[in-house]
């Protein structure tokens, strides 16, 4: 028998992880709730919240609010949650023991979460449009679509860093639950951060989605003021903070993998 003819490939690991995410999604009916049913509910609730607001752009507020609400959890925490599941299933040990760094397994999951998040956003769009009986007026539809996907990527970048916590400790779920609502409000998913007290801003600006969402609102809502420094700086901030998060993820994962081998807590759940 020939030994160790391994062709270890990071790209292949990302694709294998993406494929596994799809298979697990298809095999588990509970996923219908966050990915299909929740966007319908969020879309209808958001439409009812904003329909009596003054102005022509209430549809955009409804779509953005509900769209982000349905997407953010899945994209931001989906990968971390899947890592938590790896602990519960006992699959974290054989996965870490595989030759490819675990970060690439996470990236495959992130890809799937971005795709399923976008599907959720699309469902919200359709629900709000059907409920309102009219299409929203978006000045730059192509730019809006591109930026929409970019918002997902900023959420995913934070999600990768969060996933490292799930590898690090079995208590990551607890930390996530504590921070979830604050993060949701703080990044301006449902409403702009500028309506929060000014002392909340600095913390918000640490997160890439805050910048990207503000940029998205600039693009979608005529006359939107946001933080006041304009669309261009929002975009620069979003790209810059996303790059920082990805760099952190790259270095954190290596250290976290080392730490869990020192602690020996991979099989704890």
């Amino acid at each position: 028998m020939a030994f160790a003819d391994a062709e270890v490939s990071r790209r292949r690991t990302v694709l294998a992880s993406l494929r596994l995410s799809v298979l697990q999604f298809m095999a588990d009916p509970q996923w219908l709730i966050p990915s299909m049913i929740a966007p319908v509910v969020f879309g209808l609730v958001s439409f009812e919240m904003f329909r009596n607001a003054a102005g022509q752009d209430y549809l955009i507020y409804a779509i953005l609010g509900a769209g982000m609400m349905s997407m953010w959890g899945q994209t931001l925490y989906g990968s971390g949650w899947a890592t938590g599941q790896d602990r519960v299933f006992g699959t974290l040990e054989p996965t870490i023991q595989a030759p490819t760094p675990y970060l690439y397994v996470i990236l495959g999951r992130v890809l799937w979460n971005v795709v399923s998040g976008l599907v959720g956003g699309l469902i919200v769009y359709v629900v709000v449009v059907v409920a309102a009986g009219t299409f929203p007026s978006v000045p730059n539809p192509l730019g809006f679509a591109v930026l929409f996907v970019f918002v997902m990527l900023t959420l995913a970048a934070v999600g990768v860093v969060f996933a490292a916590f799930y590898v690090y400790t079995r208590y990551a779920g607890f930390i996530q639950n504590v921070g979830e609502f604050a993060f949701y409000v703080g990044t301006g998913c449902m409403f702009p951060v500028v309506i929060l007290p000014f002392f909340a801003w600095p913390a918000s600006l640490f997160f890439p989605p805050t910048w990207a969402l503000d940029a998205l609102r600039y693009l979608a809502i005529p006359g939107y003021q946001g933080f006041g420094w304009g669309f261009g700086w929002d975009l620069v901030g979003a790209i810059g903070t996303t790059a920082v998060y990805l760099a952190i993820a790259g270095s954190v994962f290596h250290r976290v993998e080392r730490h869990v081998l020192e602690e020996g807590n991979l099989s704890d759940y």
Partner: protein
Amino acid sequence: MTPPTPAIEAYGVSRVFDSRKGFLFREVTHTEALRGVDLVVERGAIFGLLGPNGAGKTTLTKIFSTLLLPTAGTARVLGHDVSTETAWLRPRIGLVLGGERGLYNRISGRENLRYFADLYGVPLGDRERRIDEVLERVDLVWAADRRVEEYSRGMKQKLHLARGILHRPEVLFLDEPTIGLDPKSARETRKLVRSLVGDGVTIFLTTHYMFEAEELCPEIAILSKGRIVARDSIDGLQRLVGGDRTLEAEAYGFDDREIETLRRLPGVSKVLSEEFGPSLRLTMRVRTAETTPADVAQALAGHPELSVRERRTSLEDVYLDLVEEEAR
């Protein structure tokens, strides 16, 4: 020509686990799972590691398979350090931890193997053929496309084994591979393990089953309380505990004088006593053929219910003697 490096080496390997409890006032408990383990396993052999629960077998297996770092000491596999050369080692070693966990239950056995084949870098063009091959080797072809959640414990164990050999490792670590298997499956697993050695794979096997170690492993180490207390061939271990013959005498009680008489018989190295239901059993390890059951019967004359029998010293006897000695 320089001899090949050993497959597995451990020099002074220790491992301490810290467990913490409490939130504001943290209490840290240190548990010494391994205490200075020295071990060398040559290539192409099956090496058996025996030990009671909590002896440190799984900890040592995880250290060798790069899932745990030693607190002190050096461990190498195929001449490479398990702490610093994991990228080189991981494609070359296989690990089967077994049990109910460690698999994706909602997808099929075949999909589980496909996923891990990709992670372990099984050549893409060869992947499907390799999956069929390992499924056949563990006799799981018939259930390959069923969800793992429908598998019995034994089927999951087989799937663990299939995953462990999928990427053709040079060294395979098997942590209690037949636990939970029915006798037929356990026998097939042992056959598979032997065939892997025929392919040149070095196997490091931990087990609770003495007959399994006896059947498979030319060399055995016994781990107790984190230390290797003995390491030899089965014959060597038998000699270590005082002989390959065991004589057993059973009656309703013996006094100290009689036990002392037995100890002085030629070739008797050890006399152990244990309660056996209402009676007492004396077990003697005997080095030579000089002392026979008749000699024992004569030394214990006066017990109407006395029965004496002779048998070969088993690995289980050796194991119990050594582990009990260590416990004392």
